[in-house]
């Protein structure tokens, strides 16, 4: 077990190196001079330009630039600074809470809605609620996030006035619509997953045994059927949480939430390589850590899994 964790942690190193290298290369390959773009229409003296280029290692060959950057990340957790001289670490500290809140609210919404809908659909199989869930989940999975976001803004924000349409100034309320938007696809998938797993499990021999042991129906379903059918659901929810930061790019832009996703989008447009790479590295670390936790959790839930 400990050896397994250590091995998985060591795997992080190449994953992070390769993913940051790719992102760095992509930003490096973008056409145009970021310093000139920074200055905009105002004139900039060659001396200032040279100093800035020197400061951001822009004249070094690509691999040297990358190495200097990644060295800072690994030795001092220093993600560099923006062209305005602001440390990327500051930026992350300021914007992370917004994205983390969004991810957490989304996580809670999709877990509860998806699992509850899936369980009820399985228990009322082929009845009205089941059919409703089937249709609703297909719709949720098929519709693009953008469309769902706009519909929610229109109906719940503008027409009904229940939730703020954009911005993060109303506490948790600001996060409801963005979280619903981000949760829609996964809620649909999760509901279907739980429904299918529970139906399979209710047909299984060990559930039949539980009935034959004289257990109450509620216990047969809850303690024996559900316990087993939720294992794949946990894996899915975990993997989804891990990739949620990527999803935040679109949703934070639609709902104008000042989080990391919105920042990445702006920084790509501004060719601020250090910011993009910094935030993406954070996303990658988050992704691999959550995945490790999910794998370990899986072993706790299913004793048949062995780590070697």
């Amino acid at each position, binding site marked *: 077990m400990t050896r397994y964790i250590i091995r998985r942690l060591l795997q992080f190193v190449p994953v992070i190196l390769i993913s940051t290298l790719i992102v760095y290369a992509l930003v490096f390959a973008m056409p145009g001079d970021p310093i000139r773009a920074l200055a905009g229409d105002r004139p900039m003296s060659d001396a200032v330009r040279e100093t800035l280029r020197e400061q951001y290692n822009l004249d070094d060959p690509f691999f040297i630039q990358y190495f200097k950057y990644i060295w800072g990340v690994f030795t001092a957790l220093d993600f560099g600074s923006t062209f305005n001289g602001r440390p990327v670490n500051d930026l992350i500290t300021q914007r992370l809470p917004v994205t983390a809140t969004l991810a957490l609210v989304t996580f809670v919404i999709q877990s509860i809605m998806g699992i509850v809908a899936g369980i009820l659909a399985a228990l009322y199989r082929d009845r009205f609620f089941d059919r409703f869930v089937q249709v609703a989940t297909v719709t949720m999975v098929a519709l693009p996030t953008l469309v769902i976001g706009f519909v929610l803004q229109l109906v719940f924000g503008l027409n009904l006035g229940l939730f703020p349409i954009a911005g993060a100034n109303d506490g948790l309320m600001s996060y409801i619509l963005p979280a619903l938007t981000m949760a829609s696809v996964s809620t649909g998938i999760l509901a279907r997953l739980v429904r299918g797993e529970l139906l399979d499990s209710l*047909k*299984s*021999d*060990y559930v*039949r*045994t*539980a*009935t*034959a*042991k*004289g*257990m*109450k129906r509620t*216990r047969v379903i809850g303690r*024996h059927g559900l*316990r*087993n059918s939720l*294992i794949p659901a946990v894996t899915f929810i975990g993997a989804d949480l891990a990739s949620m930061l990527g999803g935040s790019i679109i949703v934070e832009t639609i709902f104008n939430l000042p989080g990391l996703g919105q920042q990445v989008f702006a920084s790509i447009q501004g060719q601020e390589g250090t910011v993009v790479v910094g935030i993406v590295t954070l996303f990658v670390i988050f992704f691999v850590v959550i995945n490790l936790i999910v794998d370990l959790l899986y072993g706790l*839930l*299913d*004793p*048949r899994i062995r780590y070697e």
Partner: protein
Amino acid sequence: MTESQTSTRTAPGTRPGDTPLLEVKDLHVEFRTKAGVSQAINGLNFTLHAGETLAILGESGSGKSVTAQTIMGILDVPPGRIAGGEIRYRGDDLLTMKEEARRKLRGGKIAMIFQDALSSLNPVMPVGWQIAEMFRIHRGMKRKEARVKAVEMMERVGIPGAEERAGDYPHQFSGGMRQRIMIAMAIALDPDVLIADEPTTALDVTVQAQVMRLLKDLQNEFNMGLILITHDLGVVADVADKIAVMYSGRVMEAADVYEIYGKPGHPYTQGLLASIPRIDDEGGRLRAIPGLPPSLTDMPSGCPFNPRCEFATDRCRTERPELRLVAEGHLSACHYAEDVYAGTATVTQRPSPTGAGMIPISEEAPE
């Protein structure tokens, strides 16, 4: 109020032992499938007394397991449907009983062992927990107390190091040990009736004997009525008191074990017994009953066995034989049961050379 009435009903004049432990009367079970209504059980009758072992013998699809599931009340409904009949436990009809009352009998008074212990045990719960659950739910014991009882049960069924192994999961045990755990769970609450559905089919031959020995010992210890469902004639001969031979959802023949093996009164039973390979046979082909059991959605008219029976006549093809007495305690559902029993029945058809079915003797070319 009704409960006390039913329990006192047997009191005057009769000894309590006279009420059978379990009595199945004219049971009909069908399944609704896309191909039509499939008649899994067609008028099944049998009785079981305390301390008695009844073997229900039959091929796949003969309705053995459906019988067990119907008695336990774990039949999948739908597609299954109990179309008629009674199952009386100590005189009370299980089929009309309130679900809550029936649930308390299930596992407590009537328990079941399944064929495949690996899939029948919950894969993500420790075995000790699964046994202890019986004590916790039926007896309301606390977790610790129930665990102590569970370990005792594991010791009783011969699991070495029961104390340490109670925390292990089903996949960590060998097949024989897993079946012992199933047995421990089934007998935990000292049931009156134990139904064992192919309990040794999934096990190695050496382990089979040990598990059957254990079942037999436990039966004697607790004076249980044991229903042993199997297709294995060897297992039956060792442990059964009575045998009911099932075919197409009916009992074809029922008698005590010596009668059946010594003087079978039904051509189907004869065929089954003849198909046992014998150690003194010198090579040659294995004998099999020609043809296949009928489809349950499309039963032949008359006797369900007539297309495969070497004694079949026109009467067998039109009139369904009822189960009747051919000798003391020996029932057979064959029009010619007496002749079959006496070994004087006339052969009317022989297996076709392909072995796929029967051809009438009159059409055979004279030699």
